């Protein structure tokens, strides 16, 4: 998602938690979460 850098996605975490994102933002945020999670799991040698 080129429209959201990591910094602005991080700032959205509160709004995400209370379902205060619109659909586009929510999708971008969840993709960002997936990306960071898969990064972590890759480190441990198991895909999510």
């Amino acid at each position: 998602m080129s429209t959201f850098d990591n910094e602005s996605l991080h700032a959205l975490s509160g709004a995400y938690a209370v379902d205060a994102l619109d659909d586009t933002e929510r999708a971008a945020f969840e993709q960002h979460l997936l990306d960071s999670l898969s990064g972590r799991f890759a480190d441990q040698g198991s895909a999510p």
Partner: protein
Amino acid sequence: MNQFSPGAPGSPTGEPGATAGSPADSPANSSGDLAALLKQSGLGDEAAFAQLYDATSARAYGLALRIVRDPSQAEEVAQEAFLEIWRTASRFDPARGSAVSWVLTLVHRKAVDRVRSAEASTRRDTAYHQDNRGVEHDTTAEAAHASIEARRVRQALASLTEPQRQALELAYFNGYTHTEVATMLDLPLGTAKTRIRDGLIRLRDTMGVGQ
């Protein structure tokens, strides 16, 4: 799913069969039970799902009502949410949060979706005044609020700064997006985001979650 229809608004406890005892009476040990019921539901166990429904439907309906402000719509939202819970229960991961949180998060998402589609054709300022009239006296919400957990949440909410509480309530209980919250409170978008986030962090700290 013969247990499926959500409790009528006049049935505050929402316990059609009530075979599972009264989980509301034992908040301390019910969370593990609910997680087990959710896990069993994920395996297709209808009886476990019925117990889960009995234990959580009143709170689910209360939360939905708080957001959609209409009893029959709240029932529909609760029903949609429980349908999704039944379908996706296997995705519940107890390591990431309690079963109740998982259920209520799903209900909240459904309720907010409902509010947004309903409001697509309604002027925001009208909606704002409607949403700020407050909920009418309701025994279901009252029962849900009577729990110790709810008291802790209310106390924690009182610890927020007024701007934080206002931003969080508009976002969580009224279902507005952070962009709408910024517009309604006449704030820069970044400030609205920060208030919501800081408010949540303060709630977490006040309630001692994740210690």
